[in-house]
């Protein structure tokens, strides 16, 4: 890559990184006293600048000559790691980075714009308005750092920093105990994942003596350690699985998914941006980035695929019975992230990233739509309290419908193409994985439209005392733009597949080269008509079937769900209670750990101090004994004197 291009990338990279940070600082510093109700401007401008720079980066990478679309750009030495060498702050910019940057900054900008109206009550800013925008911009900074970083340490930095912003934003309404608890839970569950992630990074350093992506991946591909010894299969599997731990935490995969539904306590724009479109996809990004490591271990890949498939199905079943629109969407997000993991696990990283890309659009759209409903319903989001809103909120309804169709995989919309690809690859890997994918697709369509029918169809009713009103233009504009995306972006992955072409250089030596399906001659692109389109027809059919099913059960024959509920009460309870995973964790980990803690304090207070008291008591007892001898009684002294003399005499004569 030419020097000019590198300089452009460096400059743009710095702008993408620092403009949101500057926005955050300005919003935080000037917001309370100076900007007040205009506090959104620093965030909008900062993120806007970042988007512009991201586009610049994308164009530069897109225009780069073939084979040179990747650049490593050092910024400064951060932490001294050894004689003369440091862990650096450095960027790695390649097609994957540039796409992620576009997605992150693009969606962020729309969400920030949307929040301008959302965070107001009757056109007066809510309490903490400036804090909200400062945190939001800070999040963009952190997410960009995660994506741009050129080594594992920066990845970890971004990883923790997005976790922090998520913590701060989930707990935005800190006076609500549920929100404060959810924030803490999110941070802690993520920390559990990061425990593995951090150990994985340590193991990488231990094995390869560096944390820089390029150097590590090269050594993995050559199969050597830093010491020159061959790389053991067990070691690389361990590294991959430890990294996967972190991914499971951040992307809310089994068994660390518990924090994401609770995270819906945060404001809706936060759910849209952080807990649907960007942060939760960090795990997918990380695995795609570390393809060299993961594909070096078939065990790890299998685990990724299985976790993905299980999570997709598991979360979809819970979503079937939830009543809170945002929680339904949260479980749907977990399920869709499961698809992405499944895609990566079956060596279709480009499809997984494609699904990440399309999902960002339609899921952000759905969350913002739900936010719009919530805004109109005075903060209520439980579908039992309202219904038939399609007349009251026409634009919200329309855009929400588009998002729902895209999520369901309705033929022709974004979700259809990307999901179909993943299922296709899953089927060619193992029929069970593919089957789970198809079943989940059916469930997805069903629960999505269950929500649509419950909220927008049927008799019109709103919670008492609420004057439902359509949202203002600041909120509708992002909804419309995202709708366009939810309809259109899927076409980037059909025909000549420009999306996949663009990403191809990133994955060609990892996911493509190591794909066992391709070795065995199952290459999909040369299949016949039926193999090519058959699956599309099946999955499209399932989506339509799911939608019709939802219509039948929740718009026409409303008594059937009640009957089902009554016939299988235990299953229903298990689903409603989210399989009681939270309770299980509480009982098996949290409570015992606290008991151990109490036990430790007990040891401190009784055992250790008791032991020390005992040690002190021995000389004290001796001292009490000795004190008697110095009591001042003349007889006592006389007796001991005589005794002493007697002993001396005896000794003298006997020796």
């Amino acid at each position, binding site marked *: 890559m030419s020097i000019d291009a590198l300089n452009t990338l460096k400059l743009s990279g710095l702008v993408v990184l620092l403009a949101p940070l500057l926005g955050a600082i300005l919003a935080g510093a000037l917001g309370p006293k100076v900007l007040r109700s205009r506090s959104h401007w620093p965030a909008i401008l900062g993120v806007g600048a970042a988007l512009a720079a991201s586009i610049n980066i994308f164009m530069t990478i897109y225009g780069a000559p073939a084979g040179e679309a990747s650049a490593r750009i050092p910024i400064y030495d951060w932490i001294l*790691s050894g004689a003369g060498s440091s862990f650096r702050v450095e960027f790695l910019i390649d097609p994957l980075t540039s796409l992620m940057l576009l997605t992150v900054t693009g969606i962020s900008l729309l969400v920030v714009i949307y929040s301008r109206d959302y965070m107001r009550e009757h056109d007066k800013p809510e309490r903490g308005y400036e804090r909200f925008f400062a945190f939001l911009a800070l999040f963009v900074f952190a997410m960009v750092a995660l994506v741009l970083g050129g080594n594992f340490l920066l990845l970890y*930095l971004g990883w923790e920093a997005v976790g922090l912003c998520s913590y701060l934003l989930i707990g935005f309404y800190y*006076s609500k105990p549920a929100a404060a608890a959810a924030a803490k839970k999110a941070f802690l569950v993520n*920390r*559990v994942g990061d425990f593995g992630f951090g150990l994985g990074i340590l*193991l990488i350093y231990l094995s390869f003596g560096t944390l820089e992506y390029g150097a590590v991946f090269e050594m993995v591909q050559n199969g050597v350690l830093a010491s020159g010894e061959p790389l053991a299969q067990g070691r690389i599997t361990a590294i991959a699985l430890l990294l996967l731990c972190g991914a499971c935490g951040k992307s809310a995969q089994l068994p660390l998914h518990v924090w994401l539904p609770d995270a819906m306590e945060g404001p809706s724009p936060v759910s849209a941006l952080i807990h649907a479109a960007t942060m939760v996809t960090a795990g997918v990004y990380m695995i795609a980035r570390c393809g060299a490591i993961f594909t070096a271990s078939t065990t790890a890949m299998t685990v990724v695929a299985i976790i993905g498939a299980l999570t997709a199905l598991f979360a979809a079943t819970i979503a079937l019975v939830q009543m809170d629109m945002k929680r339904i969407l949260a479980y749907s997000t977990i399920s869709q992230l499961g698809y992405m993991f499944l895609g990566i696990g079956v060596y279709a990283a480009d499809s997984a990233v494609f699904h990440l890309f399309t999902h960002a659009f339609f899921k952000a759209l759905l969350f913002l739509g739900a936010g719009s409903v919530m805004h109109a319903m005075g903060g209520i989001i439980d579908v039992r309290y309202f219904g038939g809103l399609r007349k009251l909120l026409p634009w919200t309804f329309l855009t929400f419908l588009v998002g729902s169709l895209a999520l369901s995989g309705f033929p022709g919309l974004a979700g259809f193409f990307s999901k179909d690809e993943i299922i296709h690859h899953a089927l060619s890997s193992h029929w069970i994985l593919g089957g789970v994918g198809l079943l989940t697709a059916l469930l997805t369509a069903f629960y999505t439209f269950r929500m649509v029918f419950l909220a927008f169809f049927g008799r019109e009713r709103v919670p008492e005392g609420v004057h439902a009103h359509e949202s203002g233009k600041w909120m509708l504009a992002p909804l419309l733009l995202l709708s366009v995306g939810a309809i259109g972006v899927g076409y980037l992955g059909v025909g000549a597949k420009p999306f996949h072409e663009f990403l191809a250089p990133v994955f060609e030596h990892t996911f493509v080269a190591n794909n066992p399906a391709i070795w065995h001659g199952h290459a999909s692109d040369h299949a016949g008509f039926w193999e090519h389109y058959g699956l599309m027809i099946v999955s499209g059919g399932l989506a339509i079937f799911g939608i019709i099913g939802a219509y039948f059960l929740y718009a026409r024959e409303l008594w059937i769900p009640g009957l089902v509920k009554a016939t299988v009460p235990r299953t229903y309870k298990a689903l409603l209670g989210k399989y009681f995973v939270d309770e299980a964790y509480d009982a098996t980990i949290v409570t015992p750990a606290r008991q151990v803690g109490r036990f430790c304090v007990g040891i401190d207070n009784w055992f*250790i101090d008791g032991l020390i008291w005992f040690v002190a008591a021995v000389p004290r007892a001796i001292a009490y004994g000795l004190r008697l001898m110095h009591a001042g009684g003349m007889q006592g002294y006389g007796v001991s004197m005589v005794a002493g003399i007697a002993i001396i005499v005896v000794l003298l004569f006997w020796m």
Partner: protein
Amino acid sequence: MQTWLLTAIIFSPLLGVLLLWLPPRGSDRSIRRSALFYSVVTFGLAVFALFKFYGVAPTDSQGDPKYLLQHWSYWLGDVEVMGDVADVEILYHVGVDGISIWLMVLTAFLMPLAIWSSFTSVRTRVREYFSLLLLLEVGLLGVFCAMDLLLFYIFFEFTLVPLYFLIGIWGGPARRKAANKFFIFTLSGSVFMFAAVLFLAYYSYSDSGLALGYITLNIEKLSQLAHAGFISTSVQWWLFLAFAAGFAIKVPLFPVHTWLPLAHTEAPTAGSVILAGVLLKLGTYGFCRISLPMFPHATMTLAPFVACLAIAGIIYTALAAWVQTDVKKLVAYSSVSHLGFCILGLFSLKITRVNGAVIYMINHGLSTGALFLIIGYIYERYHTRDINEIGGLARKMPWLTFFLVFFTLSSIGLPGLNGFVGEFLVLLGTATSNTTNDLRAAGPLGYGYAIPAAIGIILGAVYMLWMCQRVLFGPLKEPPNTPDTSTGLSADLTGREIFILVPVAVLCLAIGVYPNPLLDTFTIATEQHVLRTPASHSWSVTEAGDDLQEEIKRADPMRLVESTSVNNLERVSVGNVGSDDLSTKKLGITPVFSSYPVTTPGMFLLNPVTKSSVAKTDHPETDAMTDGRSR
């Protein structure tokens, strides 16, 4: 001027104390202000010393490592006349290297903040209170500058006295018990340490020991001899254990930590800040300054044992912290947990990781010090620290919330803030300790030690966030008749209180974003004084014949001691104070090597040649030869 600079810094608070007592009856207000002023002067001097430190090279023209800003004068024993050899050479000897200078600056930095924070909280015996704080500072600064074991010991013990009174007089309800417990615990550890100091004095003189022909307690000299293999392993073992007794209680290391939670809970805010911020570091600093360099063999063998205690402590006290209802006790337990990491880093025996441990000391001093300040602010307003009685303060106290969350994040190691740098380097060091990736001999720990330590990091987040959630978030909960604003406090933090926290926060951020200036100076000090495995220049034989050189290459350093007569170790002219040596005058410092050359057959190992004259050698044999612990 510069030779006296450290002495001036150490004793300037003492001068402050004298000045505080000069006016017969000053008002409380003026006493507070002048105490603050004196501590700021000390801080100014310390910063001046820091700049001086950066101005001079840490190695002299010979490539010899050196302490900077040194000064010594004879103290016990005869003042030496030219050519005549004194029998006792116990010096008043101060000097700093890249590690101690920063700890000294940290002390001088925290003290004004601690003093300033006491303006409203201390109302009785004001003059005594501030005098004791300043006296405490004298002791702390002295420990970090001392280069003679006896001096070190004296300062080390001296810190007990002011803190004993600070806790015992201005503390909480159970202050007497806390003060006694604190005093007795630390003193009993120190007894062993003192015995070890006495033994070393004997050992240096005795024919069966080092046979130097005179008594010395010079830390630098003793470490040199130890690294050249002149202190036998069994002696090192006993000495290590004796010193460890003193240091482990101070750190405090599990299971002798029980004095700390009580002392912290009962101490006044300023006492807690200094206790957590600096005093505990005396233990880790002692390990780093005395145990590691002077007893390298014992360190190497005992490190796994110490590391296990540290790890047990990390997890044990983290769990204990989680169930505390007193916020201050919670943070006190967290201190124990954090210092376990510090010990772990030290005993990984890898240069950059020891750096991690040292930066961990500084970070812990900043963030935990600040946490205690904040808890003090809460206590002043609500007269309680019980998590069950206060809650939801965020609504009322946005500034306090900001700082508490900030320092919590710093304490739980959020990347970008200071805590992360230390935590990361320590874990990295623990994990990679037994490798030779850095071209140095393998250390004693390994990846297996990093796993339980990493659990400690999760637990750290658990209890700190739990505390934040309970204290700051949720619905507002206050005890009746609070907040108490009778002493001129406002509901949220006052300008003074914010001003105290801001510099700490700025430092936390700065160290998190760009820690290299500190790490650089640590590296030199660690290489040359702690682990004594020079990387920048190769140590080679200059005064011995080729045959002997070959023999050394083959020989086990321990065996070498036995085969070489150590009796002909002799001291050659020790320069007088204020010698006319030109280089000394020019730099204003007195390099240690030029005045203590030890020319014996055994000591040629310690004659370095400069970087330019010999190509850097990374051969393991060479490392093994110069590095006594790498067997």
